[in-house]
């Protein structure tokens, strides 16, 4: 087990743990925006960790460059996707309630 593979397993472990948390967060948060926050933010970080871990496995080959490009692409697209989701929800009038249990205020 060279140290590179050890690092890779560590990174991949962390990434998958994060994803598990995101999943749980998605289920347990009370309303849309909280769930969205959990999924989106964690999603980007977990993806970065995964790609870094894979990069270690591949070592200094063309594969790693490709992984880097994928990471770059993901960094662009997933936050934008979350933004689009949030914006669509907001435009269509969904408001998060002030306190848990209170009916959401009428759209402004």
């Amino acid at each position, binding site marked *: 087990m060279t140290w590179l593979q050890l690092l890779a397993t560590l990174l991949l472990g962390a990434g998958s743990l994060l994803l598990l948390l995101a999943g749980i967060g998605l289920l347990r948060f009370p309303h849309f925006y909280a769930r969205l926050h959990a999924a989106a933010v964690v999603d980007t970080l977990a993806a970065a960790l995964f790609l870094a871990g894979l990069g270690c496995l591949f070592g200094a080959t063309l594969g790693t460059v490709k992984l880097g490009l994928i990471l770059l692409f993901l960094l662009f*697209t997933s936050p934008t996707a979350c933004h*689009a989701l949030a914006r669509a929800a907001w435009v269509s009038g969904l408001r998060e309630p002030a306190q848990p249990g209170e009916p959401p205020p009428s759209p402004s």
Partner: protein
Amino acid sequence: MLVTALFVVRTRDLLAATMLLGAYSLLSAGMFMVLDAVDVAFTEAAVGAGVSTILMLYALVASGRFERTPTRPQWLPLLVVLATGAALVWGTFDLPPVGAPGNPVHQHVAPRYLQQSGAEIGIPNVVTSVLASYRGYDTLGETAVVFTAGLGVWLLIGGLQRRGAAAPVLASAPHANLILRVVSKFLIPVILLFGLYVQFHGELGPGGGFQAGVILASALIVHLQVFGADQTRQIVPESLLRVLAPLGVLLYGGTGVAGLLLGGNYLDYHPLGRTPVGGQHLGILLVELGVALTVSSTMLLLCYLFAARVARR
């Protein structure tokens, strides 16, 4: 996989069903990867998850989101399904086990592709060589299928003058989704570049006409979503698409006819180039180009037609 499929069937909310279908095809693409079917995974992800989800969304916008609870007795379909399932399971008993190298499947026709395609056609990606050359006629048929679909949809919901430029809700106000516009302005060229990469990289790694066509189309579909139908129509007018789609099929067919005129059988690329292998390269390149042309223009045309129909409603 199974769970997603079951949930897709059970849910009443069709929007959820479509999204889950997208997830389902992404998962199946993953499964294809596990089963070493690289090209198939690529196509399934691009075509299955990408285009069909968008088309379904358009259809849903037109036809309402929720489904009525089924009133008819459910036991008859269940019976039929169980019967067919039982027949199939009964049928698989004598099938050779999955993955065993000794299966008849690997003995008869496939070995030749694996051993000789390197020499005869000279490209590493065996799937593309089989797709374009050995069984090139199938792919011509397939391109014709794509063209028929585009023609059929055009016949059904095409030829309609768009009344008003009501673009989909997202781009209603120019400044509204600034972030999306900025990001997409950056992304679209990258996607196009990637599409071209896939097109010409088809012989070495996974990729080829279909996937490239869809990726090129998806770049413009993003543009259509974000900037609205009118701007996109200025860049790529519908009439151009209606010319490009048939042109792709003709290009494909034409390559075959060229081989015919130069003395070989139809779709025989050997006489095309100076050396037989060179001919194969040229043939496959042209054929893949034809496929990409038809697929991208048809997919984009579909989105135009659906967008126009939805906007009109």
